[in-house]
């Protein structure tokens, strides 16, 4: 079917030799990742055992595990982890609910669907900085639109960010608004993958809508929902800009997430080694979450096959 010479022995053919083909093709990616990612990681792993400070000319000395000990015994670290867990879990739950409802809405085909869907997808494309700045403005008690609207029902100005709970809510709403469309897309994938004949069968059986949902739809989206939870959990764990802009960790330290804490240690206090140790603890948690994620992905793959 082709006039190409399958027998020519050039560099290309050598390259495509089955024995080393896989390794060769993977090499560029691995090299770049090693230089830009893995090597820096190992470096900071090394640093985490010293007492290096970027703003000191003192020669760093080997400190063993003392940075890890300091990080793990500092009660602020645990406070930050708790705050992060609270923000991550509430945000992810909210994203699930909103994303799910949006998916139900957009599951049908209707005229102009592509255009209307763009309205919902746009928040993901904004920068964190602009989302942070404008949500902060919305919450501002004097100038903000939230306070203005709520003022129809109250006599006092509504002050969203004055309490720890309010501040966490403010961050969670902004983050969930930005990323619920992501969950929507995943759920949409589940919804449209339900074989039509199952619904037809349910109709014949005169099953209630609720029952149809639980017995037919839900099993198909269940594992996708789990994926959404894990994926968003990992991403929200990194949440930095929105927190830093909307509350700067306040009031007090009520919204100081681990990412903000890490940033302060590394770039404001220049406790380079100390923050490397903290970073590795964070990385460990992320790896555990990644494993959970992959485990659930594999399970889904098995279910589908």
């Amino acid at each position, binding site marked *: 079917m082709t006039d190409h010479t399958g027998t020519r022995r050039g560099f290309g053919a050598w390259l495509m030799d089955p024995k080393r083909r896989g390794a060769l093709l993977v090499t560029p990616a691995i090299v770049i990742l090693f230089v830009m990612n893995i090597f820096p990681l190992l470096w900071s792993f090394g640093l985490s055992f010293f007492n290096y400070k970027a703003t000191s000319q003192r020669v760093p000395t080997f400190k063993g595990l003392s940075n890890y000990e300091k990080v793990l015994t500092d009660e602020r670290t645990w406070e930050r982890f708790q705050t992060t867990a609270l923000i991550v879990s509430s945000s992810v739950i909210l994203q699930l609910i909103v994303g799910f409802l949006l998916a139900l809405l957009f599951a049908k085909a209707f005229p102009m669907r592509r255009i209307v869907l763009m*309205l919902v997808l746009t928040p993901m494309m904004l920068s964190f900085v602009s989302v942070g700045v404008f949500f902060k403005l919305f919450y501002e008690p004097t*100038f903000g639109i939230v306070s203005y609207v709520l003022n129809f029902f109250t006599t006092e100005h509504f002050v969203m960010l004055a309490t720890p709970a309010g501040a966490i809510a403010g961050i969670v709403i902004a983050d969930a*608004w930005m990323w619920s469309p992501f969950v929507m897309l995943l759920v949409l994938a589940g919804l449209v993958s339900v074989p039509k004949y199952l619904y037809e069968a349910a109709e014949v059986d005169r099953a209630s809508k609720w029952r149809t949902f639980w017995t037919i739809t839900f099993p198909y989206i269940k594992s996708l929902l789990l994926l959404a939870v894990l994926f968003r959990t*990992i991403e929200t764990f990194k949440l930095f800009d929105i927190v830093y802009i909307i509350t700067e960790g306040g009031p007090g330290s009520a919204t100081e997430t681990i990412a903000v804490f890490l940033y302060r240690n590394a770039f404001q206090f220049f406790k380079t080694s100390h923050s490397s140790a903290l970073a590795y603890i964070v990385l460990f948690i992320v790896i555990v979450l*990644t494993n959970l994620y992959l485990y659930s992905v594999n399970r889904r793959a098995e279910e589908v096959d």
Partner: protein
Amino acid sequence: MARKYREVGKAGWGYTALTTVVGFIYFFPVFWIILTAFKTRTDALAVPPKLFFTPTLDNFYSVFFRTSITTGNSQATDMGLYFFNSIFIAFTAVGFAVIVGTLAAYAFSRYPLRGNDTYLFIILTTRMMPPIVVIIPIFLMFRISGLAGSYWGIMLLYTAFNIPFSVWLVKSFFDELNPEIEDAARMDGSTERRVFFGFCIPQILAGLAATFVFGLILTWNEFLFALLLTGVDTRTVPVAMARTLGGEVGVDYGLLAAIVTLFLIPIFFVTFLLQNQLLRGVTFGTVKK
């Protein structure tokens, strides 16, 4: 391979109206940002918040020009350069990442190495860790290599940033292809190169496009690396945007909104054009239908 959603049921224009209302409520904060781009400072901070006002293009003008303090003439703000930088850096880095990622993905899919899954796992982990974890050592590394402030430095970093995602996504596209067709082609005497370029690539072009767009969305708004690793000539828009966040006044809402609006346009259209591939992109290719 591009596939349309198999929609659950069909609905008419009435449903369009309903979803438009809901969609618009969801879109409202974005709408408000875009409105703000056309407001003066006093309109932007007006109480009650203003929906109707006399629009001004001053903010858009200020994106590109500022008034000289000593002479009162207008000077360029270099924002044009920063828009160029953002587009150049993001497109080049993501393009390169897709090429490198595609090669690796093909290998992972067709010629599994020993410990294939381990490699894939490590690759994914590098993408999933908070950027703050690597920024300290990358900084120390840029300090030695002299990459700080150059196009090369930031592009290499963004390439690395996008490779994991490209590998996973493109691999899932390759996995979906039917290997029997490739084998048949080989039986007919096609070279491996021709199998790759003549059979595999054409079939996943739409997937590659989606990978590209997703990389672009993730890279487009990146702030921390750009702030710390670009120089005055290689600065990107998200970094330059920060000039609207405080100086002589606090946030310059109108100017920020104008930059955000302009910066949204390219990514919005690319996303719109490739919307059908979005679904696969967001899950890094790990979700298959």
